């Protein structure tokens, strides 16, 4: 189970990027549009548009490894969570509502920083939304600087 402060961070208005890999170990990238705790905080759910990131999701089945990096756009605080997939399911109505709340929050934060609508509109989507449920195994600090890459905790 990840630390409460980290969990609150990833549930906030943070930019989210993900990587999976195929059987040949070729990486695929995607962007997440909202993350929340599940199963009493033992698991995390991250929402992803399959229409936009088909390769990322094609690699993911229960047991597959996943890397997710979360960045606060205003101060570049960054954490990378490594995890193992528990389930990959089409988003429910509740998931969609959750993603829409994330859309509003991140949109407000980014526009306040001067990011334009055009820059946001291309990835802030709910099209063909899927929910990735995963069990965190490691958390790394990746805030730019000398501590980047430091392992913060190893989840049991």
């Amino acid at each position: 189970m990840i630390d409460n402060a980290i969990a609150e961070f990833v549930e906030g208005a943070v930019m989210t990027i993900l990587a999976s890999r195929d059987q040949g170990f070729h990486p695929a990238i995607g962007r997440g549009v909202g993350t929340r705790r599940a199963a009493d905080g033992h698991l995390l759910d991250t929402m992803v548009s399959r229409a936009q990131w088909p390769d990322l999701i094609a690699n993911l089945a229960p047991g597959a490894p996943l890397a997710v990096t979360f960045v606060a756009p205003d101060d570049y605080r960054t954490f990378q969570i490594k995890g193992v997939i528990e389930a990959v399911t089409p988003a429910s109505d509740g998931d969609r509502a959750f993603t829409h709340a994330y859309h509003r929050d991140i949109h407000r934060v980014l526009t306040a920083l001067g990011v334009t609508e055009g820059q946001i509109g291309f990835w802030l989507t709910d099209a063909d939304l899927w929910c990735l449920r995963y069990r965190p195994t490691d958390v790394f600090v990746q805030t730019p600087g000398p501590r980047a890459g430091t392992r913060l905790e190893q989840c049991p």
Partner: protein
Amino acid sequence: MTAVPLQSLHACFEGVIPSIIATVDAAGVPNISYLSHVHYVDEEHVALSNQYFSKTAANVRDRGTAALILVDGRSGRQYRLDIAFVSSSREGELFDRMSDHLSAMSARQGMSDIMALRSADLYRVLRCEAVPAVGVNEEAPPAPPDAAARLAAAARLAGALAREADADAMIDLALNSLHRDFGFPHLMVLIPDEGGARLTVIASRGYETPGTGAEVAVGEGVAGTVAATLRPLRLADMSRGRRYAEAARAERPLPRAAIPYPGLGDPLSQMAAPMIGRGELTGVLLAEAAARFAFTRADEDALGLVAGQLGAALALHDLAAEGATAQKPAGTGIRGPCIRIRYFPFDDSIFIGEDYLIRGISGRLLHHFLRLHLDEGRSDFTNRELRVDPRLRLPEVKDNLETRLILLRRRLEEHEAPLRLLRPERGRIRLEIGGTPEIEVVT
């Protein structure tokens, strides 16, 4: 997804929106990280800055491949690339350019040392495709600027500059053409002082006031950084203050100088190129704009070409403009109203009445002209006699005398001073005075 030519992705290489890199380690665990900057190298290669993303670097060493997402800063469009590692370099032009860009971005955070570039890593692009845009009104992408036409225009301008015999006119020709034909909205030429600590505006276009004589510090801002590194620099979107704040602080006037700096208060785009002649910095050519993405890589190359020609031409002009023979006393009578001049030897600054005029070598030259005018009744001088006069203490090797004279002439004219410098012919200077100077030396 269809293949996209790498060279069509100009706006992805501006470092405006961070890129993303994913790798896989030997055990099959993926890693994902933001990248501050991906540099376009050629149609098949990109370069990544290796600062501190050590897990990424280790994975690339293991497996040799990575996936990238690039974002077009103008449109927001995303592109996915598969890349294969080619080589890593710690020196050379690519390394230097990437290092300059990184310094400009990281200086404000006081992280210059920590974020120093370790190496410039070259990758071959195996695949480049657009990420599907979902639920977004796809507008036609803006037509990419015609790079070849830009460079052709710059080459024509360089040719015209080479044919221009007069250094003063050469500067005007360059600025007028860049302003009118290239559409660069705000431009200035700055020249270094003798100590190499300051840059002084010698000419400008597109500002409310020309600001001739205004000063900025070497090492600060885009112009100051270019003067320090002797390499061109271009920043495409300075609105994200965090990353560009140091450069975006815009060249601020130094405290002593009373001439308002003409530059934009809040430029979103800036680029500058060094003017180099005979291996030395003769000036900096700066262009800026209020809009983001005002300048492309081709614009930067064009500016560099023009700056190079201007720098070489000014240096050559300095060599040639010796003036034929020493000048006889002109014997013009001194009359008219009194013009009160104050001269401060400690920094060679000159005040006319209460108004600051100029300092440095240009100030020393004006004091010299006025002194000889009062003592010997002279109004005509030659470059040659100035060079050998020990009182002027001009540097022996590279005095940039011609540009100092241009600066002085322009500043007097802009200030509407009761003094004018005329250039009756190459290598000659004539002082025209609308009164009787009275010089007070303030020590």
